[in-house]
């Protein structure tokens, strides 16, 4: 009896302590917020006074700005010091969030009551969540007016006129999108030109007819001259050439990894899935024929890449297939000059085939034109999937927003400043060679990460595509050579039914495509698939997406 009483006492004691603790925790947070607010208010007040006098007195303490990063720079990095002095700010890099588990870590840190000032969300589809949580603040027209050059430059790259569909809500802007200028170029096909020559073809195929001839020859005429029937025409990434020849790229990959279904505009100009378009049935019929005739590598099911760098096609490097795709020309470029090493996959190709030579053994080709005159390969799209967000904490302090906006605007107008942010300091991080090209100091800073430690890259909040071209002339000269027709990904808002149904639809699509290509199911099954696809959420997603776009843009 006594023991039980004691136990009761113990339990109630624990409960009381727990209650007290939770109460005190509540008290703390409610106390903290108004305090912060008043502080922020006084700051903005003093700031207003100063803006009236136009120039802030130099004695004013620098305002602290917290930017989310994936790795901290050295505390006394010279690049950062220079920027801090320029804007009279102090950057704080305590918000370290690993890019691979971004939402998870970000969520935990936010829920502990802290907030950064500026954050680059890796996926603009997540912005809904952060608006609801009260993290993302509206970028008001007044704020937008402070970065006119940014808008002027990025909107030039917005070829589908859709870059703001997921950055805006009811016409209000919540995020700034960066541009990756190389995404504006389509991916290319890489050909074994020595194989082509061995089977009597002297030019890289441009039409589906010629493409087919080459593919069958690669299978049947022993292009590698080893006397064994061990070669195939194409594998998984080469399908893009066939799909594109019929008018669309249906999905990111049939192999491993997430098989994102691509969205295109249909004839009415509305967003719609590409994988259900009737042209795809024709393309699948073609591929089924190819598979039956043995010109598709049967290992296409597991993809061409066997690990390591994603852009490497091991099937191609090992001489199993004669054409590969889904890469940019700059993955395969030979060295531009003695200071450069060539593209990442080019280097792997040479490691595996020491006698290979660009232009002789392998070369780059563009899209294949189909029977209806359509052509194109996949294009990543110039508008990146990530998005820059000002937080609600940041916009309370005008000094912070002004400093960040000015930093963005200066990145877009001042080439020398751009170089400071992206290349570092001349003489320390890079040098100019005789032709005026920028050469990185690879001896002291061999990896990007070494430069990041020095503060380089971190403050280029949004990429300036035109300055990038200016700083990397070789790169863009090379990529420009292989510019051709392409199908760019449409930007689209990720709606509720999208998140709910998309993975099931992805599976359905991949299963269907696979079984039609391998001949398990007849081509006619495609119609049944389309039906199934739209019944199981496809219709809802398309409708929601289109209404959401209109709503987001405030139309």
């Amino acid at each position, binding site marked *: 009896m006594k*023991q039980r009483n*004691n*136990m009761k006492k*113990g*339990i109630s004691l*624990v409960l009381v302590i727990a209650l007290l603790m939770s109460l005190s925790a509540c008290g703390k947070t409610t106390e903290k917020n108004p305090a912060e607010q008043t502080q922020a208010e006084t700051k903005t007040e003093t700031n207003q006074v100063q803006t009236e006098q136009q120039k802030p007195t130099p004695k004013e303490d620098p305002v602290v700005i917290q930017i989310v990063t994936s*790795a*901290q720079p050295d505390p006394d990095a010279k690049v950062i010091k220079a920027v801090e002095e320029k804007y009279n700010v102090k950057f704080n*890099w*305590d918000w*370290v969030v*690993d*890019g*691979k*588990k971004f939402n998870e*870590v970000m*969520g*935990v840190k936010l*829920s*502990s*009551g802290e907030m950064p000032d500026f954050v680059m969300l*890796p996926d603009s589809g997540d912005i809904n969540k952060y608006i609801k949580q009260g993290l993302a603040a509206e970028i008001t027209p007044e704020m937008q007016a402070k970065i006119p050059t940014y808008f002027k430059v990025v909107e030039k790259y917005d070829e589908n006129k859709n870059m703001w569909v997921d950055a805006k809500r009811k016409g209000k802007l919540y995020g700034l999108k*960066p541009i*990756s*200028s*190389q*995404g504006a170029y389509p991916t290319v096909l890489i050909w074994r030109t020595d194989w082509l020559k061995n089977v009597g073809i002297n030019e890289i195929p441009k039409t589906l007819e010629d493409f087919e001839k080459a593919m069958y020859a690669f299978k049947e005429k022993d292009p590698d001259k080893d006397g064994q029937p061990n070669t195939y025409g194409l594998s998984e990434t080469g399908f893009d050439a066939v799909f594109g020849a019929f008018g669309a790229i249906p999905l990111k990959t049939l192999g491993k*990894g997430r098989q994102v279904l691509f969205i295109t505009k249909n004839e009415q100009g509305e967003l719609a899935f590409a994988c259900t378009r009737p042209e795809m049935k024709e393309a699948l019929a073609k591929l089924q024929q190819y598979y039956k005739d043995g010109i598709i590598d049967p290992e296409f099911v597991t993809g061409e890449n*066997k*690990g*390591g*760098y*994603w*852009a*490497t096609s*091991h*099937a191609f*490097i*090992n001489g*199993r297939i004669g054409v590969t795709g889904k890469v940019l020309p*700059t*993955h395969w470029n030979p060295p531009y000059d003695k200071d450069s090493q060539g*593209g*990442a996959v080019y280097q*792997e190709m040479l*490691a*595996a*085939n*020491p006698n290979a030579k660009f232009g002789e053994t392998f070369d780059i080709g563009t899209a294949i034109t189909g029977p209806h005159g359509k052509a194109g390969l996949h294009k*990543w799209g110039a508008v*990146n*999937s*990530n998005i820059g967000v000002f937080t609600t904490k940041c916009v309370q302090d005008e000094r912070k927003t002004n400093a960040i906006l000015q930093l963005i605007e200066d990145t877009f107008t001042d080439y020398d400043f751009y170089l400071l942010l992206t290349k570092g300091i001349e003489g320390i991080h890079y040098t100019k060679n005789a032709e005026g090209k920028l050469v990185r100091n690879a001896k002291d800073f*061999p*990896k*990007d*990460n070494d430069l990041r*430690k020095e503060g380089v890259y971190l403050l280029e909040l949004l*990429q300036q595509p035109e300055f*990038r071209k200016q700083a990397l002339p070789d790169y863009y000269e090379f990529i420009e050579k292989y510019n051709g027709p392409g199908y760019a990904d449409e930007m689209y808002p990720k709606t509720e039914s999208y998140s709910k149904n998309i993975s099931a639809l992805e599976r359905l699509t991949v299963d269907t495509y696979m079984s039609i290509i391998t001949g398990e199911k007849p081509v006619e099954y495609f119609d049944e698939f389309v039906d199934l696809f739209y019944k199981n959420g496809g219709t809802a997603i398309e409708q929601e997406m289109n209404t959401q776009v209109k709503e987001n843009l405030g139309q």
Partner: protein
Amino acid sequence: MRIKKSRENIIFDIIVYGILLGMGIMTIVPFLQVITISLSPQEELAKYGMHILPQKITWAGYERVLSYGPIWRAYLNTIIRTVSGTALSIMVLILGAYALSKPYFPHRKFWTLIIVFTMYFSGGLIPRYILVNNVLKMGNTLFALIIPGLASGFNLIIMRNFFSNISLSYEEAAKIDGANHFQILRHVYLPLSKPIIATVSLWVGVGHWNEWFDSMLYIRDENKQVLQFVLRKLILEGTSVEEEMAAGTQIFVNSDTMKMAALILSMIPVLMIYPFLQKHFVQGLKLGGVKE
């Protein structure tokens, strides 16, 4: 006298050995693959098929890893974390288990219940983060990696059960000789419970060695990151196209040879310690699990 094996026994043995052999191969083959990749030059790796035995040997991967500064720093951090974390953990567990194992310990059931409670329910990630980072102010320090997991309920109960099996007569005898509780623990209990200490140390130690998520969560300074987190970064680098798009530039790619060499180097210490603790392992588990 020999027991004659019946046919069922033989079939049973064949099945058991078959399964064990299968499991053995499933464990060994990936391991061999990792070793082979770490020793092979790039052109070998680009070839199709499994890489079970190295065809050509190169030490380039190891050379590159060993000359890569952050790995050494991370290695040291992990060793500090594992050694100090395990030592502290074992100390706390022994003290806790000793008290809980005494039948005359006041409210023993209640305290045991509280500890068992933590095995079934936990506050979750967010409260833990708030506690460690905001309340205890341990963010960006080694303490954030050691203190939160210091005494796990499961280990404490296992150890308590082991201690409960040690006859109270030893304690009485020691008391008659004038020993206090600390002396009893030091001179009677510890020598008798080597197996359980070895077992639990192994669990805690390997746990510390392999853990990376807390390092990602609490540590901001790259110089304080642990080995597994640095390795994870190294291995995931360059595996997705999205990363490259966001970076806006071609990222520097570490060769598979280097990645696997780093993996092997991280495995060596655990591999070396295992055989020495293994003999205690089975015994400790068995004894801790049963209570008379």
